[in-house]
């Protein structure tokens, strides 16, 4: 299919991985060549993470061979893989926030002197590595004090310490803004030119096209094929990934009917001068039934903080809120919930799902908490409820007793949505509900949001992807530097207009 000029540094053939009874991977091949950025594409649950884990020795393939530099290998774990030049940077930053940058970078490869650590050499070496990445931060500063983006780059920096032949980047860009992504790509290209083989996993198609040379596409645990990026048009890639035509996505393009709301309607939730010191400046906001309000702004602009005040996750220290015209105090998530306000956090793992419980328990958690422990939902009702949401949202695997930690990110997000929909909220606040999930699931969630609004729910939608916000919002509130700076009509707004507002009106 493609010319094989350089021999692959990693050659995986016929890889199968089973988590009985599920076959997560079925006879998949992957070839990584030195000096190449190779994208691994597929929907949630297609087997991308499993394939990476099979390579690094976290999962043991039941069939197939893995060759690194022509030698057949089965790594015993990430450390072993790293020792043989295969390093991984995972979706969630896996570093120690309480250690310094230098300690994190040199962890496991610390320079020693007289049986102890050679701290000065450690900082010096770390500084060299940081410089190579174009990062100008103090190696002696604590890692936790830096932004997520910097932490991500530090993680990559750490992965390239030592003899790194293969670098695996699993969703490295999901929490980065545009400039940071550009920086990351510069670093990736430099590493590629040094002869490193990079495996890049991302849900952002434009980024994949911008940076990758070749791609391998998976669907439902099977190999679809290996392609040269330049030769594969986007719509064909999407078809390969989701196994259906673009219609689904096209439909999502026009999800929102921009019907005007009758004048004089009472807002469902009205915030006046609501604010919290150090979090977000006092703002006014009105939310109406049947309307999607998008929050646009950069990371750290205060969009999440605003959402947290609206939902009782944080307590406001200024301003008032009125729910359907009546004064309402949103002091706790529980108080907000009793008023019909639901909030899904952007931190799905830390503040969303309860990963040690089952899908069923996660879905009923909100409703059950609201009823109180003394009035358990009858089992029959629970089973019906859970089955209906699994069906309606297409949660996979469709097993109510599956442990949540065994689900892919997109499916976890759907379970989280189901938890809140089950409480029949009047206001649904979604913070980054589509982060790190694939195109198909993303379109489904957008469609769902539009449908919910059409049924009369009020929705607040936060996303780092501006297009997405523009596409589904009736109104858009723009935030900058922890302040609400503008509110515009979603119907007439253009991308440029919003970008200008976010950037501060021609400041750039």
């Amino acid at each position, binding site marked *: 299919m493609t010319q094989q000029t350089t021999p692959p540094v990693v050659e995986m053939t016929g890889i199968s991985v*089973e988590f*009985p009874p599920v076959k997560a991977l079925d006879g998949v091949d992957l070839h990584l060549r030195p000096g190449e950025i190779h994208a691994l594409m597929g929907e949630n649950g297609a087997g991308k993470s499993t394939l990476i884990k099979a390579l690094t*020795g976290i*999962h*043991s*393939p*039941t*069939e197939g061979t893995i060759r690194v530099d022509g030698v057949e290998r*089965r790594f*015993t*774990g990430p450390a*072993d893989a790293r020792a043989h030049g295969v390093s991984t940077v995972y979706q969630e930053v896996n570093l120690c926030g309480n250690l310094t940058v230098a300690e994190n970078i040199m962890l496991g490869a610390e320079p020693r002197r007289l049986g102890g650590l050679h701290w000065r050499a450690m900082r010096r070496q770390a500084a060299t590595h940081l410089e190579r990445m174009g990062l100008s931060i103090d190696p002696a500063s604590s890692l936790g004090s830096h932004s997520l983006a910097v932490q991500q780059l530090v993680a990559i920096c750490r992965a390239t310490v030592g003899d790194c032949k293969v670098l695996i980047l699993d969703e490295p860009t999901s929490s980065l803004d545009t400039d940071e992504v550009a920086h990351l790509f510069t670093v990736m290209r430099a590493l590629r030119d040094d002869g490193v083989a990079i495996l890049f996993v991302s849900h952002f198609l434009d980024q994949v096209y911008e940076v990758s040379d070749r791609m391998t596409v998976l669907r439902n645990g099977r190999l679809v094929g290996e392609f040269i990026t330049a030769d594969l048009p986007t719509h064909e890639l999407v078809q390969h990934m989701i196994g259906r035509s673009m219609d689904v996505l096209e439909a999502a393009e026009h999800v929102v009917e921009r019907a005007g709301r009758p004048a004089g309607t009472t807002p469902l939730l009205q915030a006046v001068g609501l604010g919290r010191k150090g979090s977000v400046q006092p703002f006014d906001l009105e939310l109406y039934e049947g309307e999607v309000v998008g929050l646009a702004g950069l990371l750290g602009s205060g969009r999440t903080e605003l959402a947290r005040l609206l939902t009782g*996750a944080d307590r406001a220290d200024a301003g008032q809120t009125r729910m359907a015209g009546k004064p309402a105090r949103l002091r*706790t*998530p*529980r108080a907000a*919930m009793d008023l019909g306000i639901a*909030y899904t*956090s952007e931190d799905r793992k*830390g*503040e*969303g*799902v*309860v*990963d*040690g*419980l089952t899908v069923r*328990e996660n879905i*009923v*958690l*909100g409703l*059950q*908490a*609201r*009823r*109180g*422990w*003394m*009035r*358990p*939902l009858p089992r029959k009702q629970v089973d019906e409820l859970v089955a209906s949401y699994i069906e309606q949202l297409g949660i996979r695997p469709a097993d109510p007793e599956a442990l949540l930690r065994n689900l892919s990110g997109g499916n976890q997000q759907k379970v989280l949505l189901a*938890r809140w929909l089950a*409480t029949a909220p009047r206001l649904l606040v979604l913070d980054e509900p589509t982060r790190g999930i694939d195109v198909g699931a993303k379109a489904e969630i957008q469609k769902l949001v539009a449908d919910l609004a059409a049924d009369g729910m009020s929705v607040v939608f936060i996303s780092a992807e501006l297009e997405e916000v523009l596409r589904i919002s009736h109104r858009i509130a723009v935030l900058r530097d922890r302040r609400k700076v503008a509110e515009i009509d979603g119907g007439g707004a253009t991308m440029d207009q919003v970008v200008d507002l976010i950037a501060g009106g021609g400041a750039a």
Partner: protein
Amino acid sequence: MTNLLRHHLFWPVAALVALLVANTVASPGFLAITVRDGHLFGAPIDILRTTAPLLLVALGMTLVIATRGIDLSVGAVVAVSGAVALSHIASSPNPDSPVTVLTAIGLALALCLVLGVWNGFLVSVLGIQPIIATLILMTAGRGVAMLITGGMITTVNSAPFKVLGSGFWLGLPVAAVLAFGVFAVVAFVVRRTALGMLLEATGINPAASRLSGVRSKTLTWTVYAAAGLFAGLAGLLISADTMAADANNAGLFIELDAILAVVIGGTALSGGKFNLSGTLVGALVIATLERTVTVVGISPLVTPLFMALVVIAVTLLQSPRMRERLTAATRRPVATTPPEPQSAARPDSTEVKAR
């Protein structure tokens, strides 16, 4: 076979059976139960009776551990409970009146509930780490008990109170009936209502639970209060057994035995999923073990060592990693070509060999 081996109660129950067998070998009549004056007598009945206080303390401990917490103060609470009850009876002009005894029980339980509420306040409202928060009462509690008893071992004679420790009801020891009864009721309530699930959610991910509307603080507070109450009841059983309140030695190290019972029963100290039936078996294992030491005739010099070895064996067998290895061992004969020796040591490489 593999399924049985994987069952979470397999190893604790196996340990219990092994201990009973060892006892029967050492003393052939060990399992015999006789009827005397309409009461059941025999070593197994005795074990049930001695398990009772530990079972109550371990019950509270399981719930606390489910919320990611721990309660080190329960031993001290046991001492306080006995001190309050016996001091009240001793100072009463009429120690044999049921009213006096009931008041004593009520006072003791009420104070222990307050102590539990205090722990819960420190943990859930002030946010102090549970091990530190309960350490405060662990040390202070015995001091409180000393104050109540005036620094002496209070002994009393009160027939109604003595029933708690050595009486019989329907042929069974009252202490055992009470403890197992309370245990059964609590287990039933926890699993039949949503309490169990909400506790587990709180233990696994407190932040997510709070955002989902779970009243995590109230729940946490409640389990510490319950742990105090159950420890108070255990204290009554212990003091009624000896009819003496010893501020220094009543319930000494019972908190550690209770934690051990929880762990042997398969509940992880990291919180979340908990297993009350496991705790029950764990408590029985510990009580039987103490009994075994005397029956088998192990020298008092090596008793602690012997008990430690048994406990290490059971907890190791109970650990997920060990269990994976054991199931790997049982499946090994099916293997065709063993992979690299290094990976053979990894538990999750069993999938490869099972082909």
